[in-house]
């Protein structure tokens, strides 16, 4: 039971984590993440890595789509830009991995701004279709700019190093990814404590009155596109260095949709939602695979249903959450917390 939550200063009331209980759980989570690779096997660490990369990408997309209300079907394309930027810088110019991380972000942000620039005049469907075009054109570029991308064969990158230390093993790279994910989450949380974040939400809720309140729509929509694709670019950079290879089919339209699904399932406009959605949408296919594996004795063919079944469940999750729980897992989490807050005295 948590009651007696009084503040004496405005600073205390403006803090993100307002009570000692919350801070305690946060430290516990950090500690758990720290020791995780010591206890978990290679497979679990790999899953954690993939999930954390997805968190970075989902936080970025949620800034744009959930918080600013600008739908994007080009997120995978921007991730691809980041991935290729990193791979090309590493293989052709010998740039250290850690430097390619911000550069990948910037390259993707530049693309985001170019796509976003016409967005001041476009809304809803038109913007959605324009970002779809961006995705198609970027995919085409990945395949056909052979001299740079090696076409469908893709680019192989060596295991990343950091200040001479090899990050070849899963656990070593795990820490890099976790730090990037933690910074991404913190930075976007910070954003919403200031005028920039408020402006984003105002544009989503009512862009016309936002402008009459003094918000420069063009500037802030571009900010949203730049930030969102910066995160996407970093996620792409992490991904290529995790998998050690980048090919065009790693960043198809379907991946853009998958990221949209993450933030819908997690909760549009919620940072916690981005995290929950990324975890959920990464783990569900794995659980499904294990579940089908249990029935393999009955029907050896059953694994051939795995992929289409995943596709159906994926679609059903999007539809189901939008129809029944439009605020996503974050809202379910909030309700569960509210329930336990006064527990066991519910009335």
């Amino acid at each position: 039971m948590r009651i007696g939550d009084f503040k004496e200063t405005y600073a205390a009331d403006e803090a993100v984590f307002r009570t000692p209980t919350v801070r305690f759980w946060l430290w516990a989570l950090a500690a758990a993440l720290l020791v995780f690779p010591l206890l978990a096997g290679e497979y679990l660490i790999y899953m954690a890595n993939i999930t954390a990369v997805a968190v970075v990408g989902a936080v970025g997309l949620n800034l744009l789509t959930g918080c600013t209300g600008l739908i994007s079907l080009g997120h995978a394309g921007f991730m691809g830009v980041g991935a290729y930027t990193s791979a090309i810088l590493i293989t052709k110019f010998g740039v250290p991995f850690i430097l390619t991380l911000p550069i990948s972000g910037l390259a993707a942000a530049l693309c985001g701004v170019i796509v976003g620039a016409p967005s001041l005049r476009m809304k809803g469907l038109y913007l959605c279709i324009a970002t779809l075009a961006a995705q198609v054109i970027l995919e085409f570029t990945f395949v056909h700019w052979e001299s740079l991308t090696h076409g469908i064969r893709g680019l192989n990158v060596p295991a990343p190093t950091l200040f001479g230390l090899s990050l070849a093993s899963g656990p070593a790279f795990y820490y890099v990814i976790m730090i990037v994910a933690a910074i991404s989450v913190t930075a976007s949380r910070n954003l919403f404590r200031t005028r920039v974040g408020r402006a984003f939400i105002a544009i989503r809720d009512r862009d016309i009155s936002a402008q009459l309140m003094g918000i420069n729509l063009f500037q802030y929509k571009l900010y949203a596109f730049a930030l969102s694709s910066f995160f996407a670019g970093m996620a792409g950079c992490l991904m290529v260095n995790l998998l050690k290879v980048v090919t065009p089919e790693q960043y198809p339209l379907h991946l853009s949709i998958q990221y949209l699904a993450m933030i819908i399932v997690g909760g549009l406009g919620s940072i916690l939602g981005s995290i929950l959605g990324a975890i959920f949408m990464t783990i569900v296919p794995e659980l499904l695979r294990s579940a089908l594996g249990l029935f393999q004795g009955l029907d050896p063919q059953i694994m051939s249903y795995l992929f289409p079944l995943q596709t159906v469940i994926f679609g059903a999750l999007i539809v189901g959450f939008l129809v029944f729980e439009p605020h996503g897992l974050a809202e379910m989490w909030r309700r569960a917390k509210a329930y336990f807050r006064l527990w066991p005295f519910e009335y």
Partner: protein
Amino acid sequence: MDILPQLIVSGLATGGVYALIALGFVLIYKATHIINFATGEFMMIGAYFCYTFMALAGVPVLPAFLLVMVCAAILGFMVERVILRHMLGQPVISIIMVTIGLSSILMGLAEIIWTSQFKNLPPMFPRAPLNLGVAVVRSNLAYGFIISMAAVGAFALIFKYAKAGVAMRATAGDQMAAFSMGINVKSMFSLAWALGGIAAALGGVIIGAIGGISPTLGAVGLKIFPVVILGGLDSIGGAVLGGLIIGVLENLAGGYLDPFFGGGVKEVAPFVFMVLVLLLKPYGLFGKEEIERL
């Protein structure tokens, strides 16, 4: 032989089929203001219906077409009743995403039912290619074009003259006003989805007859977006014009530019063109600018 007339003629023929598919989108948008990203999957399912009736059950061509239309209408109707009805008044993003989710469901189901193996529809049209003098058109494409144009014409007539069509147009103009005039707005929504389903499914059968079918056939459906952006989201005439333009344009781009890019230009050209159009006219070539009020 000069390839230009050939490229233009086969582009027009493909464009006619795009027009029919785009019509499936426009009919639904016009009446319900819902953007159906699953149009391509409606096509794909339609093609599989046709495959099931003709190749598996041995139904002859014409009855098979009728059965496909009935099934597609039922599918459209069900989708509206079961899913989209719950989304009335939701933000555009949510509605777009629901139809994207729907497309994923349909694609997965198709693969479970019909497997991911590539399939050919049984031959439906006379084999001999059509020789127009300046160009030769493959028979499937030629008959596909004729059927598409006939279907588009039929839909246009229904929309213009049939009582239900007039009611649909009224609903499209102003839902509240239509409601107060005694039009059952909800049944108009169902009707629009049923008609949209039929148009998309017919388009799918033709595309399937030309190039074979697989669960990813729906990807062709993405091309309707350049078409409808060009033609206006809610205009039947615009869909036809947009379809023909995009069909010719992608064929020309593919024919002349592929050697420079190593292929694939045909797939990307409509989108590049669309971006240029959007940059100049943010609401499309024939689209209406929405006037906003405070």
